């Protein structure tokens, strides 16, 4: 079995990031926007791991652990905001945010 070439793995990370970005731009549901942000963070983590594996160093995995921590904190605050928004407006539509 040949090893995974870093170029293709980085390409996959790029494709996943673009899909997440498209989701953030296209979807208006706040829950889906958060999901797509998760996809983007995950693809960035994949890029870190690929780069770490390319040089055989643990740094990439360490950065992924930091990214995981950040994603957890981001999701906790983001979902709390989402619940707050839903309780006020009774909708998850991002266009209904703001405006008093």
């Amino acid at each position, binding site marked *: *079995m*040949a*090893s*995974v*070439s870093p170029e*293709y*793995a980085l390409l*996959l990370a790029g*494709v*996943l990031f673009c*899909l*997440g970005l*498209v*989701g953030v731009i*296209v*979807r208006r*549901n706040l*829950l*889906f926007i*958060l*999901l*797509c942000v*998760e*996809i983007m963070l*995950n*693809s960035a*983590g*994949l890029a870190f*791991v*690929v780069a*770490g*594996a390319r040089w*055989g*160093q*643990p*740094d*990439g*995995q*360490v950065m*992924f*652990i*930091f990214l*995981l*921590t*950040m*994603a*957890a*904190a*981001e*999701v*906790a*605050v983001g*979902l*709390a*905001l*989402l*619940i*707050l928004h*839903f309780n006020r407006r009774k909708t*998850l539509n991002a266009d209904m945010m703001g405006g008093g």
Partner: protein
Amino acid sequence: MNTVFALSAVVAVAATVLVITRRSAVHALLYLVVSLLAVAVIMFLLGAAFVAALEVIIYAGAIMVLFVFVIMLIGHESIAMNPRAWIGPSVMSAVLLAELAWVLARGRLGGASVTEVGPKQVGIALFGPYLLGAEMAAFLLLAGLVGAFHLGRRRN
């Protein structure tokens, strides 16, 4: 190109496309878990088994459960799913499981070109040169906890 990698990459991209096109949040969540599992398989193939396990446990486990809790709390849509909705994610996960079984049955991962970086090296790096980063991550988690508590608290 490595067929196992290609298969997992196809599964990851297909599941992600399905995530951003689903109408129901629960279905999207299910596909996102499959996408994360596919990425975990790719990390495993890259020789980063520790991070692959973290991806399954924390991302596909803990963070996705948080999303499920919020969907239930909001009660915006019914959690109950018709059995047909399980077919897509099940087939994709079966593909990933078959890949994993095949890779494990072959014994050693990859060829001489795959250098495995184990948990020991990661731990030494994390609590050696990256110690300040680990402390900051702890602060970030505390800030997230306080922020989520503050936002979620009932006002009267």
